């Protein structure tokens, strides 16, 4: 390239990687515009998520599988835009001067925590599938005609396991005990059922590192989030701040919804300043979800996933039914129970159709976030400002 193209001295360095270096002048306007757009898009997308279902636009209930999938989609969109704003065509040295020299490493640190949360949530989805299968046993049993003692007992067994598993304190008994089942644990009594559920839960949830705690990760991710002030608020510090908040929110919502190792003390209070336009809907969502969480936390809940809540509610109700069941059953009662069983079946269907795609999406989020992290690290390295890597 002819030397005349270069204007600043630092532009004279050809970067070793394939970043396109663009001319500096006249670009500041474009940049501001991009930032504005970014904020607007964020506001719009979160607005969609917050919107109540109406007759014209049936929306997915908050924290249902479909809603979560939308949330993740939206995250991917924001992420792509963020990357464009931050990195594309930018000279590396711009990204490594203050305040970004401090903010970006913090951001990357949050990213690493988000990756771990993705993994933990993915494991949690497997647990939810386990609940789904228990529920399917119930459906299968209760759909039999004539509905007899055998089917009801079968359903009750599954229901007990299901409800016990879902109300278990998640992760608090993470001591993975090497239990050999003593004789006394056999049989189909309620106690044995609960133990079985406990052991199954433990074995299913034992894949994260021993002292890993979802709530601590979220807390750490948000602890150093400070809104940029003064002239920082118009520079690149702002999109970093916005994206960080989005990331924290998404991870937090996932953790609240899906069973995840160690969620005691999951934070319910966020520090996003209320006057920020792009944050309004997100704050609204935070409040709603926090409220739900606080309600459920006392009772010990597996998670706020809408389908799971439904499973739990129906489960409790059906247990009552099974407790008072007498053969033969009156047609009226049968009708009543059928409604619930149908709802249960419907929920299982949603889970069957949605949980695997959800897992795939989480994986996609994982990939994207890793890629962005690598690209940011590359740019930082190019700027030569990255200190000796600790890893």
């Amino acid at each position, binding site marked *: 390239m002819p030397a005349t193209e270069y204007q600043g001295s630092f532009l004279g360095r050809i970067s070793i990687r394939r970043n396109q270096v663009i001319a500096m002048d006249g670009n500041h306007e474009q940049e501001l515009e991009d930032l504005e757009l970014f904020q607007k898009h964020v506001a719009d997308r979160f607005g969609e998520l917050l919107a109540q279902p109406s007759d014209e636009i049936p929306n997915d209930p908050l924290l249902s599988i479909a809603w979560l999938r939308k949330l993740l989609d939206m995250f991917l969109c924001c992420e792509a835009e963020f990357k464009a704003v931050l990195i594309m065509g930018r000279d590396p040295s711009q990204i490594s001067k203050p305040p970004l020299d401090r903010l970006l490493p913090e951001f990357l640190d949050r990213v690493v925590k988000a990756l771990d949360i993705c993994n933990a949530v993915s494991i949690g989805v*497997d647990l939810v599938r386990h609940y789904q299968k228990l529920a399917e046993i119930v459906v299968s049993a209760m759909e039999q005609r004539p509905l007899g003692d055998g089917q009801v007992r079968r359903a009750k067994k599954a229901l007990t396991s299901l409800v016990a598993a879902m109300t278990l304190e998640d992760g608090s008994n993470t001591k993975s005990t090497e239990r050999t089942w003593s004789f006394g644990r056999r049989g189909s009594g309620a106690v044995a059922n609960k133990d079985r559920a406990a052991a*199954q839960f433990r074995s299913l949830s034992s894949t994260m590192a021993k002292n890993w705690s979802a709530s601590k990760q979220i807390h750490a991710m948000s602890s150093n989030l400070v809104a940029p002030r003064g002239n920082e608020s118009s520079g690149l510090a702002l999109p970093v701040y916005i994206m960080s908040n989005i990331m924290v929110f998404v991870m937090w919502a996932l953790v609240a919804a899906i069973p995840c190792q160690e969620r005691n003390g999951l934070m319910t209070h966020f520090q996003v300043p209320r006057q920020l336009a792009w944050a309004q809907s997100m704050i609204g969502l935070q409040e709603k979800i926090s409220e739900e969480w606080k309600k459920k936390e006392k009772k010990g809940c597996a998670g706020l996933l809408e389908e799971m809540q439904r499973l739990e509610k129906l489960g409790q109700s059906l247990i009552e039914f099974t407790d008072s069941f007498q053969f033969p059953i009156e047609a009226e009662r049968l009708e009543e129970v059928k409604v619930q069983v149908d709802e249960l079946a419907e929920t299982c269907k949603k889970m069957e159709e949605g949980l695997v795609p959800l897992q795939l999406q989480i994986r996609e989020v994982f990939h994207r976030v*890793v890629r962005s992290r690598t690209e940011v690290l590359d740019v930082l390295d190019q700027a030569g400002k990255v200190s000796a890597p600790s890893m």
Partner: protein
Amino acid sequence: MEPPENVGFEFETAEKIILRWDSTASEEARDKMIFEGDRQEVNLYLQAVDEIQRSMSSTSISDDQNKVNSAIQIAMARLEDEFRNILIAQTNPIETDSLTDPNSSTSSGTGGADFDDDVNGEEEEDGSMSKDDELVRHNSGVSSVSSSYRSTSSIREIDLIPSDTIFDLRSIAERMISSGYLRECIQVYGSVRKSAVDASFRKLGIEKLSIGDIQRLQWDQLEAKIRRWIRAAKVCIRILFASEKKLCEQIFDGIGTAIDDACFMETVKGPAIQLFNFAEAISISRRSPEKLFKILDLHDALMDLIPDIDIVFESKSSESIRIQAAEILSRLAEAARGILSEFENAVLREPSKVPVPGGTVHPLTRYVMNYINLISDYKQTLIELIVSKPSTGSRYSGDPSTPDMDFAELEGKTPLAIHLIWIIVILQFNLEGKSKLYKDASLLHLFIMNNVHYIVQKVKGSPELREMIGDDYLKKLTGKFRQAATSYQRATWVRVLYCLRDEGLHLSGGFSSGVSKSALRERFKAFNAMFEEVHRTQATWLVPDSQLREELRISITEKLIPAYRSFLGRFRSHIESGKHPENYIKYSVEDLETSVMDFFEGYPVSQHLRRRSQ
């Protein structure tokens, strides 16, 4: 018209048996397990179950149906417990002794000792496999000179459960599934077997580390973990998972559709993900040059495992595992490429500004040459992975901070070779920058000479490296250090020898005229001073390579000695005829010869220079 059939006598007998074993009903039923007891009992019970199942289809009276269904549920609940109990009784973490060949030595490969330290399994397998069987299996395999891991070089299924137990499990599974209790069966199976796999994981030392944990660890700790992981992964895929798969097939094959797949995934999905998460975390760790080789080890190990992963996880439901393995492999490859780039960057930018004393080989040179030597050791893998040329350095880039290099000259070379040459180019570029830190021009040239020579020696010392760098470029490098040697000599000795020139010593009129005694004395003084200074200084310089040192000294001597000898010969009489000749003719030829021996030794000389021969 026939009346609807009532359940018959056989049903009543069967029902009695089922009810007798209803564990919700009696203490006795709870305390004993059918399958642990009399074989007769077992058969009776199974027959009873079959009878009940038959009755299902043959009755249509609602009350009777209820009875039958109720009996089935009791039977299924019982069978579920029996199934669980049998599985648990048979569940032992995999026998780790059987994983390594007791005969082989812990020789090559990646540190056998570590693995043995991890292994502490002492439990007996349930009589299924004697040590002899193991040895026979091993010896019939391909003999190889590697370490105790020959047993994990290919899939090797172990029988986890003895076959008569399998028979029992099958008979239970069949009945559960044909009664529509498939889900319960899968769940019981999955939860017990998964615990077994988890226990085996613990024995193999497979840790649960989060990505955050791994980011925080020091690299040398991680190297050890990677080594351990590679060994463990081979066992997991080829033995552990393969055996679990076989077990599922043994129990569930032929019963229903793809139930063995479902059970297999229930059992191993979590552990497989846990296993791969470690490799994935390593593949996304921050890139820095020292990580290259362990990452390549990990890459190679995983690549080696992929065909077996594809076999073990071949079913549709395990696709995600195959995909993840492929993703991790590709990330590791990317990481390797990225690290190489990082390395090139680091060599170019290496900023140390302290001139290395004595002009010797710079630590950077050593580091870089050792590094690319190692790269050539990993040539086989890297040739596959490195597919593009270095993305910089076209000729006439106009950028003063990177060297130029015309890649067109290197047609026909693999991208890897081009990278290696490029690395040497940027190393020299960096060294040239560092050489300018020397105020003394002679030292500058000596420094370049030393370092380029070192590069040449290293390349020559490795056949793979030499083959990749190519003799053409090697010739260029050789020429370069020879040139540097010449430049050094010129820089130092031209002015010294200038003292010994003929011109200017004669009074006007040519040779036949007299010699200016004062000029001559000045010459001798100048020569002595210069030589002493050069001697004092350059004794502390270092040419580490002994042959090069010798050659350089000889070259100096070849120029210096004849010139001095001839000068002495022609002019000494003039000095000796004057006062205090010893002030001017301080050194004999031998003295000079001896002094040259002090050069480039790297330490200061004592004041023994003045060894004027008496």
